[in-house]
């Protein structure tokens, strides 16, 4: 094996065939990149650009298993992904940015300094303890970039770093990258659909075609001028080209059609505004399926086993409701799928088609039932010129047919077609009041376990009453010590459980003695109620610190569990979004328990697909920062576990309460 110098990249005859794919995604690629070179990697959707970056970063197997032939030689790569949400592992900017340092075994003492310098380098002026999710899209992407930089990479691999951002945030991210490359002399390889603004920064361009072959490699000016025809055929967003002609699609004609665009900075609340308008509209509509909706995550709209079924579900319901002939409604759906260039996929499994195709399918789904109004969230993001023209064609056809369209977008070419443009101003974000840790995770887990032990001795009414009295006193003491008990609602299921245990132990026991039931209820209450009260205070990251650093639980499972728990709110949001989509589409409205169970299973399935896919991206982002490479024995931690006065108090009370029933007997 030849030795590669730091910052250099050497790819020799690289071919990658995922198991799921009949053909290679990357074919026989060979190229060398010198240390300090700045390279742009372009190609149409599905040409394998992101895959190549992942291969360079050594994290290919994280999303797909397959056969890798050839050789990649690279030293010290750092990878930045498109969606910074995927890279979140923790709850504060500090812990987020320190993740790569922890894996590399950097000592705790200098970490705060390194992170502060990193924040300055990317122009992010936030306190270290600031919640990592409470940032705009651009800020979050710069934080993620700083997290990559913290590991001191010699080769920066950027995978569509600005495609989800508005033009101002995108410029800020590019500026940060330019400065960084300038100062450190690191090698840069960037993938971006809309690459014009990156051209001043790069000195070389690699072009992949849709078969995953490297077709051009050279200085950007030369490549773009000498091969402009071929590049245009690849549907690339070449600089200086006009917006493509919208495809001609015919959905009939009607009056009242209109395009209203909601625009504004990333994170200003375009999506929120779009959805609140959609809700208001939905509530006003009296007819079934009067609205259509394209969410940002197109995959969430999938229902049923085939592409056609997904697109037609709502149209079929609407047709039945309005007494339209089924064949007529079906021909409309066929027409729109064909217009969007996915007519040949009608019988395919909708989960198996490409991301770009899923996006067009979701658009077809939103329009197939000829809704009075349609709400589209970033319909054109990340599309090449070919699919852009199809999507715009469908949008214009819907307007001609009389549909009122409201579109959240930061695509200037789409904004230019609007009848009305509304600029969304960011709301002042309320400062998040950081919840102070009151009780440690370990104590939250240990105290109820102790109480469970004590509960086994609650066998007489006297012991039960004493334990109940003890609980009440403990609750008062804790409140006085500053523990906030705001769990009246959280306690309800627990109270029901206690009641259920009490009653059933009364009439299912041999003597059917009510006292037996009462004692059983008190016994369960003695550990269940405090357990629930304490559990509301659980903070995963802090529990993780204690488990890994004090109890020496292996670090990798702990880190993975904490990262997953950080996604709880995200997953709840996805769950709500799925329910919302189903309601808009008129499915899952059945009232009976079977209908509800059906609807629930279909929601669970949608949620899991989405969750597992995002886990793949998260694994890539974590492994790119050394999560799997790390020598876990020398891994360090950015923060020490915390332990406070309340912890002692809760433990003490738990011991006393556990002892009480023993004394009572």
């Amino acid at each position, binding site marked *: 094996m030849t030795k590669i110098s730091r910052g250099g990249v050497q790819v020799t005859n690289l071919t990658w065939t995922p*198991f*799921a794919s009949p053909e290679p995604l990357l074919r026989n690629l060979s190229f060398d990149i010198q240390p300090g070179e700045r390279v742009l990697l372009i190609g149409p959707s599905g040409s394998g650009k992101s895959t190549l970056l992942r291969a360079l970063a050594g994290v*290919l*197997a*994280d*999303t*797909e*298993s*397959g056969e*890798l032939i*050839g050789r990649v030689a690279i030293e010290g790569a750092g990878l930045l992904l498109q969606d910074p949400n995927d890279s979140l592992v923790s709850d504060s900017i500090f812990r987020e940015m320190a993740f790569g340092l922890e894996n590399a075994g950097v000592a705790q003492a200098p970490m705060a300094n390194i992170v502060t310098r990193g924040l300055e380098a990317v122009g992010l002026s936030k306190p270290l303890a600031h919640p990592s999710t409470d940032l705009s899209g651009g800020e979050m992407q710069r934080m993620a970039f700083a997290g990559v930089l913290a590991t001191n990479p010699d080769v920066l691999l950027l995978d569509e770093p600005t495609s989800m951002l508005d033009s101002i945030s995108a410029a800020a991210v590019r500026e940060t990258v330019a400065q960084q490359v300038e100062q450190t002399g690191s090698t840069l390889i960037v993938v971006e659909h809309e690459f014009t603004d990156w051209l001043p920064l790069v000195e070389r361009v690699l072009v992949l075609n849709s078969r995953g072959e490297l077709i051009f490699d050279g200085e950007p000016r030369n490549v773009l001028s000498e091969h402009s025809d071929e590049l245009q055929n690849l549907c690339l967003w070449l600089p200086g080209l006009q917006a493509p002609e919208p495809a001609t699609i015919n959905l009939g004609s009607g009056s009242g059609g209109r395009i209203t665009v909601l625009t504004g900075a990333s994170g200003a609340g375009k999506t929120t505004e779009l959805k609140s308008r959609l809700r208001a509209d939905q509530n006003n509509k009296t007819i079934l399926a009067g609205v259509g909706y394209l969410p940002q995550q197109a995959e969430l709209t999938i229902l049923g086993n085939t592409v056609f079924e997904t697109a037609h579900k709502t149209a079929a319901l609407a047709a039945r409701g309005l007494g339209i002939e089924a064949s007529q409604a079906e021909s409309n759906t066929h027409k729109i799928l064909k217009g969007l260039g996915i007519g040949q996929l009608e019988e395919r*499994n909708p*989960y198996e088609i490409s991301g770009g195709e899923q996006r067009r399918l979701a658009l077809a789904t939103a329009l197939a039932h000829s809704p009075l109004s349609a709400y589209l969230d970033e319909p054109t993001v990340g599309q090449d010129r070919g699919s852009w023209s199809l999507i715009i064609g469908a949008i214009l056809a819907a307007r001609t047919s009389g549909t009122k369209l409201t579109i959240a977008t930061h695509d200037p070419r789409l904004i230019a077609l609007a009848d009305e443009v509304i600029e969304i101003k960011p709301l002042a974000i309320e400062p998040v009041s950081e919840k102070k840790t009151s009780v440690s995770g370990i104590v939250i887990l240990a*105290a109820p376990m102790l109480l*469970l032990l004590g509960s086994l001795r609650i066998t007489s009414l006297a012991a039960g009453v004493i334990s109940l009295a003890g609980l009440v006193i403990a609750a008062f003491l804790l409140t006085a010590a500053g523990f906030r008990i705001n769990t009246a609602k959280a306690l309800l*299921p*627990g109270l*029901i*459980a206690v*009641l*259920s*245990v009490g*009653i*059933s*132990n009364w009439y*299912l*026991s*041999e003597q059917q003695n009510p006292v037996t039931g009462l004692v059983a209820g008190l016994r369960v209450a003695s*550990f269940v109620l405090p*357990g*629930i009260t*304490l*559990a509301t205070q*659980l903070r*995963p990251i802090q529990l993780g610190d204690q488990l890994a650093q004090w109890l020496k639980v292996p670090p*990798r*499972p702990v880190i*993975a*569990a904490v990262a997953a*728990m950080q996604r*709880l709110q995200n*997953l*709840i949001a996805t*769950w709500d979004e799925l329910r919302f989509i189903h309601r808009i589409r008129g499915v899952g409205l059945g009232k009976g*328990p079977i209908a*509800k169970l059906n609807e*629930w299973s279909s*929601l*669970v*399935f949608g*949620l*899991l*697909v989405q*969750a597992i896919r*995002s*886990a*793949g991206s*998260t*694994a890539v982002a974590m492994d790119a920062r050394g*999560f799997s490479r790390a020598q876990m024995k020398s891994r360090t931690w950015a923060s020490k576990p915390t332990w406070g006065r309340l912890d002692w108090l809760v433990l003490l009370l738990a011991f006393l309460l556990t002892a009480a029933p023993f004394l009572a007997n």
Partner: protein
Amino acid sequence: MSNTVSTKSVFAWRGIDLITAAVLAVALGVAFWGFDAFVYPLIGIATAGFPPLGGLATGVWILPAVAGMLIIRRPGAAIFVELIAANVELTLGNSWGVTVLISALLQAAGIEIIFALFRYRRFGFAVAALAGALSAIFEIVGYELSAYYADFSPLWKLLLVLCSMISGAFVAGGLGSLLVRGLARTGALNAFAVGRESRSK
């Protein structure tokens, strides 16, 4: 150099194994919380006063451990997934407080034992159902009978165990297998053996 990206030892978890298992657990936690919100009240009210019937719901809580094992196929997968799912339950609020962690450990132990007996090589319906049933026995006999239902008469205790076993086998084992196969067909599990198998059929 030719290099097939594959897994080496069943004990060496890849990053993707850990993170997928953890996220799966959290997602299922959310789903069950949603189950409580719109299906469970019916069942809950029906069985609140009659736990033996409630035993039929036991499998629901075991399902994450089975699904995790069927996807990850490594020792510890059931324990890892079930413990995290229990933590999610805790955070979102549940009926039993922190002691769900004990349940989680017992249930997962039942799953681990069965798959270990088959040396982590058999992942079909029958093995999953067997694992689900043993898991339910562990949960009921090892914990619930003494903690919650100590005063039931022997007959009722037996009935509770039987109901739970049926649920463990069919709901956790059966539905869990179906769920994982369905997920594999979407391509979301392509990084795992179960995803490859579903493609090569």
